[in-house]
């Protein structure tokens, strides 16, 4: 397998960044990492995952959809789209890599969202196999193997060298473009590293969590469960869980008058907010119970009902560590599952 030694990783980053914009996870403070545009000298974070998910690369928090010039009774629509530039995201974890597949099902289904598609086509995802999964991780519940992270290129670290395995034509092109910096290496130690990681996964507190009780067939039963009242009791609808979630995709569309034309924006929204479904004559989800139920029913029941059984959660654990009242999808699953 092609490899590069750890000491040469930054030289590789410099090379990639010569041709394309490169994003890597870097530490904002110890163990708090975020994706940053790579500049020479930056060190890749050793934290397990970024605080914010990687969905911003394809579905940014705000983006400009169109511009309008309004004068008198006339309106001019300006299509401000342009072909995205190629970019590389390095160090994406298996859970986040899977989340792109879930977002694809939403944004690339007919009618295709051209804003998302444009970024998706120009982005190369280089993933990084996990070696030290955390207590909040439960990706294996959704059939994800964190030691085989996917994306366009999977990267594996054996303690000394980074090994590269391309998974797609885009990944193949990426590896070819830096192949002069890579050398053939002995990957025999990787199997042991992977085995180690899998053993850690098995011992993690959430390893036993199962999706068996969920899916589209159980729609009415779970919707009508009497557990929702207790589960949602303390949720104050802050929306944190939806913003950090790599698969949450709800959005709002708003106009902004710049004084020199009107810009139409799309921005992340949250089904946890009280005005999300508010209408002139009422609100279809009036209580926090209904809004809370919507978020989890969507991931565990509605999404699989519409997507051949695939769940809308990747077990990244972000909502577990970020909810101010320590409520999360794991607690919901445990409360609703068959005993």
């Amino acid at each position, binding site marked *: 397998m092609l490899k590069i030694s750890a000491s040469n990783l930054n030289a590789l980053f410099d090379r990639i960044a010569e041709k394309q914009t490169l994003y890597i996870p870097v530490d904002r403070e110890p163990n708090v990492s975020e994706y940053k545009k790579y500049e020479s000298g930056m060190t890749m974070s050793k934290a397990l995952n970024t605080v914010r998910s990687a969905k911003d690369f394809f579905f940014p928090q705000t983006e400009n959809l169109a511009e309008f010039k309004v004068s008198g009774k006339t309106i001019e629509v300006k299509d401000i789209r342009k072909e995205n530039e190629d970019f590389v995201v390095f160090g994406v974890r298996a859970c986040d890599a899977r989340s792109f597949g879930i977002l694809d099902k*939403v944004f690339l*289904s007919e009618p295709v969202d051209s804003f998302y598609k444009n970024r998706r086509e120009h982005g190369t995802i280089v993933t990084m196999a996990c070696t030290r999964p955390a207590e909040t991780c439960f990706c294996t519940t959704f059939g994800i193997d964190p030691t085989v992270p996917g994306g366009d290129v999977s990267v594996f670290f054996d303690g000394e060298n980074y090994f590269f395995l391309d998974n797609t034509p885009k990944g193949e092109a990426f590896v070819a473009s830096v192949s002069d910096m890579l050398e053939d290496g002995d990957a025999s130690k990787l199997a042991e590293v992977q085995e180690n990681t899998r053993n850690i996964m098995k011992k993690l507190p959430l390893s036993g969590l199962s999706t068996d009780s969920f899916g589209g067939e159980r729609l009415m039963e779970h919707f009508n469960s009497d557990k929702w009242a207790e589960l949602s009791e303390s949720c104050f609808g802050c929306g944190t869980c939806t913003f950090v979630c790599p698969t949450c995709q709800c959005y709002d*569309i708003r106009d902004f008058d710049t004084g020199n034309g009107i810009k139409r924006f799309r921005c992340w929204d949250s089904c946890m907010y009280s005005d999300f479904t508010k209408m002139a004559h009422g609100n279809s989800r009036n209580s926090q119970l209904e809004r809370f139920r919507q978020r989890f029913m969507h991931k565990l029941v*509605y999404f699989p009902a519409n997507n051949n059984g695939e769940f809308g959660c990747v077990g990244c654990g972000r909502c577990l560590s970020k909810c101010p009242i320590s409520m999360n999808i794991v607690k919901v699953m445990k409360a609703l599952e068959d005993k």
Partner: protein
Amino acid sequence: MNNDTLIPLIGVVTDIRQDTPDVKTFRVNALEGGKVFEHMPGQCAMLSIPGVGEGMFSITSSPTNKEFMEFSIKKCGCLTTWLHAMDVGQQITIRGPYGNYFPVDTELKGKDLLFIAGGIGLAPLRSVINYVRDKRDDYGDVQIVYGSRSKDDLVDYKEIIDEWTADPNIEVDLTIDNPQEGWDGHVGFVPNYVKELNPSTNKTVLVCGPPIMIKFTLAGLKELGFTETQVYTTMELRMKCGVGKCGRCNIGDKYVCKDGPVFRFDQLDALPDEY
């Protein structure tokens, strides 16, 4: 890059009619004349004035009308107030058509039809009614029951009187909630009127109006012996995208903007009661 449904087209308002104190009907054309796009009865479009807002509205004109589209719009907030204040010649943005439609060419074909509308709920049904009138031989009996608060609140009153009631092949039954000077027609709420009229249970029913009216009408129809599989309605939930992606208009696993807005009651019964 391909067209994106979120980037709207431009339409121009070529006629405005004040139908009731708070409903106006707007005629919309493409800038070069004709229609901005084709649609089927029951489908909707997103209209907007940039900087003011964007909202979903039923296309109330029939697809058989080849010259223009029409929207009947009730004034109730920011965008609709702005739309009510505009003059002929104003341009608006428009995108669509969105959603499914009444199965006019399949399930409804050849059937005796009973239309039941309340207030602005006539808007989506008017599209079907005029479609059926233009293809009259394809359908059986047509009966229309329409009610509003008062005579002044009946949307499209002129067309109803001049064309629908004048059409010998259609039965039109109008009602208003309370007695009013100059009104010698029926007085009473729509659900009760439907029960009084006692329509034959072999009719297929299309009902649209305020949620409370729909609820009581359905209950009344069931008392008369109708089943859920015979009754269609359209749903209205908050919408932004119109294409099942912004995540806000779902009832269970169905998106009203994409899988609806037209549902049969047996389909709604299989979904959570969250609307």
